[in-house]
């Protein structure tokens, strides 16, 4: 395997970007950079910038558009912006683009040996280096300056149908890499690598691999557990004070047919807290115990800092694919709020831990079970946002129905063993009060509206709407304030930053990255 590089150097163009990342910015609110997948470790995707705000948003202008020069799938990555340069990916490709002008600086291409090319979430950055995952199971480090390869490490096994898609997150001297794949019955895990050498520091499985591992009592056997899925599809969030990584885990395996895995199947469909330095399990909370609908719980777990009776309280919130919203104490995983953010029909209340209790009648049936949400879920991988100024958690949601059929009737089903078919769906952006889980406002989309979100101190929520619109809503009321019609639906989570006194908003639709700027004074 060789990687090919192509360079386009901008003669005479003074770039911000040649010095590397000041790693201290990884733990700070993003203003003059967007140095990590969610902007910072919290997962909030909130910007304190206010040059673009609800009062002047109608003056927002298109600054530039960059159409990618290679790669077969759309841009699902969240770009990073470091020292005036944007870095983003699609499977097998990484680009550096001038954040002021949209001109390509370099393009790195990986020669792949297989793997699913469904999407890539982006790069991680540390000092002078970038990190990304390839569909054929490699973690690769590049030189930020020119895209040249520094090292590569194999992180998974293609023959077991794993693949790489996750944006690495760098925490202290750890490159945290998640794994993707749910075709065969394999265990999910998270890895930490040395940012300088790429050497493996630790690997933690999300399901029990031996008797006595956390969650062992929720599986019928270690054979079932150690093939039980729980992939780590999404970039993690992190609390530096607690030194805890929050990894969200995927569905159990087999996915739809469940006869050989009675029990809650911990820690699939869960938020799991790990020690950042050792990977050691600290606590787990299953948003989807014993899932049978392909509802991974890999939706972003967002850190919220609350104050109760004058005392700070560390919380973590998730709008899960199964339609339920959870707020937990992030020190110990105890539930504070469990509620629905769209109406569902598959559960029978909550257990003592605040976890939903699956209704056996709504598990897949031979003759079909009508279930809401559908397999796509009430939410999915596109990241939500939390705005501390409004106290609202925003998520682009769907209320969708489909019929789940059981195909594999064997006592020991493998792989999927069934699926859902057909469906009806409605989409809306839900603004959730994290203190009680109630919907403060709901902005219904006429058609699809599934995208990542960004909120700002300018009282704005940026999102994708129907008819390929990039939309700004009033964060307090949900009123639609502004839109731009793109060449396709928004395909990633927007970001914002300020350069030379101008605030920019960057968003992707398919093969194009769009930059909007507030030039008005």
């Amino acid at each position, binding site marked *: 395997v060789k990687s090919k590089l192509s360079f386009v150097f901008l003669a005479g163009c003074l770039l911000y970007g040649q010095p590397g990342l000041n790693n201290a910015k990884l733990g700070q609110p993003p203003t003059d950079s967007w140095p990590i997948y969610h902007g910072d470790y919290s997962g909030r995707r909130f910007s304190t910038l206010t040059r673009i705000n609800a009062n002047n948003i109608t003056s927002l202008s298109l600054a530039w558009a960059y159409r990618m020069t290679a790669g077969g799938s759309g841009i699902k990555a969240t770009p990073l912006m470091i020292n005036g340069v944007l870095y983003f990916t699609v499977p097998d490709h990484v680009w550096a683009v001038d954040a002021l002008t949209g001109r390509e600086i370099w393009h790195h291409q990986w020669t792949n*040996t*297989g*793997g*699913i090319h*469904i999407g890539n979430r982006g790069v991680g950055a540390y000092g002078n280096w970038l990190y990304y995952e390839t569909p054929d199971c490699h973690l690769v480090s590049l030189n930020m300056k020119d895209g040249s390869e520094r090292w590569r490490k194999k992180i998974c*096994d*293609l*023959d*077991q*149908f794993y693949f790489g898609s996750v944006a690495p997150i760098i925490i202290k001297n750890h490159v945290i890499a998640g794994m993707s794949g749910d*075709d*065969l*019955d394999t265990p999910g895990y998270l890895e930490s690598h040395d940012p300088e050498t790429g050497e493996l520091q630790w690997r933690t499985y999300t399901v029990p691999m031996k008797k006595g591992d956390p969650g062992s009592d929720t599986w019928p056997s270690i054979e079932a557990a150690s093939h039980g899925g729980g992939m780590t599809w999404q970039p993690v969030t992190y609390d530096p004070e607690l030194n805890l990584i929050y990894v969200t885990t995927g569905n159990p395996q*087999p996915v739809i047919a469940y006869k050989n895995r009675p029990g809650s199947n911990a820690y699939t469909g869960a938020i799991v807290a790990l020690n950042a330095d050792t990977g050691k399990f600290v606590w787990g909370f299953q948003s989807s115990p014993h899932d049978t609908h*392909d509802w991974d719980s890999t939706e972003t777990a967002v850190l919220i800092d609350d104050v109760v009776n004058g005392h700070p309280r560390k919380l973590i919130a998730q709008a899960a694919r199964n339609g339920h919203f959870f707020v937990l104490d992030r020190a110990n995983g105890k539930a504070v709020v469990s509620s629905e953010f769209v*109406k569902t*029909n598959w559960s029978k209340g909550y257990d003592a831990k605040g976890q939903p209790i699956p209704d056996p*009648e*709504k598990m897949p*049936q*031979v*003759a*079909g*079970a*009508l279930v*809401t949400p*559908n*397999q*796509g879920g009430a939410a999915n991988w596109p990241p939500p946002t939390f705005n501390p100024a409004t106290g609202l958690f925003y998520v682009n949601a*769907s209320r969708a*129905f*489909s*019929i789940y*059929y*059981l*195909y*594999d009737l*064997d006592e*020991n089903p*493998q*792989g*999927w*063993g069934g*699926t*859902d*078919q*057909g*469906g*009806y*769906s409605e989409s809306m952006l839900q603004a959730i009060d994290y203190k009680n889980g109630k919907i403060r406002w709901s902005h219904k*989309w*006429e*058609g699809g509206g599934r995208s990542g979100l960004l909120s700002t101190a300018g009282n704005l929520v940026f999102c994708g*709407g*129907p*008819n390929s*619109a990039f*939309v700004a809503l009033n964060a307090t009321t949900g009123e*639609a304030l502004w*839109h731009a019609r793109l060449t396709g639906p928004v395909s990633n989570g927007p970001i914002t930053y300020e350069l030379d006194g101008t605030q920019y908003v960057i968003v992707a639709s398919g093969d194009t990255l769009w930059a909007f700027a507030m030039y008005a004074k």
Partner: protein
Amino acid sequence: VIGLGAGPCDKQEVNAAAADRGRNLYATECVNCHGALARGTDLGANLVRSLVVLHDRVGSELGPFLKKGHKTQSGKSSASFTEAQIADLSHFLKQRVNDALRGSPLFQPNNVLVGDAKAGEAYFRGEGKCAGCHSPTGDLAGIAGRMSPIQLQQRFVFPSGGGRGRGGPAAATARRTVTATVTPASGTAVTGAIVMLDDFFVTIRDSSGELHTWKRTPAVKVVKNDPFQAHIELLDKISDKNMHDVTAYLETLK
């Protein structure tokens, strides 16, 4: 299909004839311990999940494993298997791995006709209010002759198809034209098929084919009419038993 498209570029493509030969060897030497689908029994390991099998390429891993000697049904040493036999066995086992994937020949629905047709008819004429729009001797006459049972089920629950179900729509979908009547601040109301509707604009095509677009303001009234609204409302009301019963009833309309 995602499942069958997963894995490495150099993965082994199953040779069906070789897999058939391998099936015979498997039946003679392996099935008692590893099971008919190679998913294991109390006596032998699950071979679909075996790393030896998953890493194998036409015997590259399986061959050295078997050459070490492995218990067989006949008592014959597995070390005596020829390279051709091992290759055949490899194709058979890879075929069993593929059984687990979406898109495989086994990835098919089973019989969905488990309902009570009489109860389904009662629901059709009563609680479901289906008979208000549909007739077994009118639009539904002979419908079971044109659709499979699962297509009937999908068609009546989701007449417009669409949605995000991974298996996709199971039935040819009905034509759904959602219309809107738009009343501008000044001027007359216009009704037509919705071409585009969002927070900012509404575009409809009237019966003459002419397009009309308005910027949406509080003064511009838009009233939607979805011909499948009754089906949409049914989604929150119908039980799975009702759904199975109606499917059984529709199956009688041949």
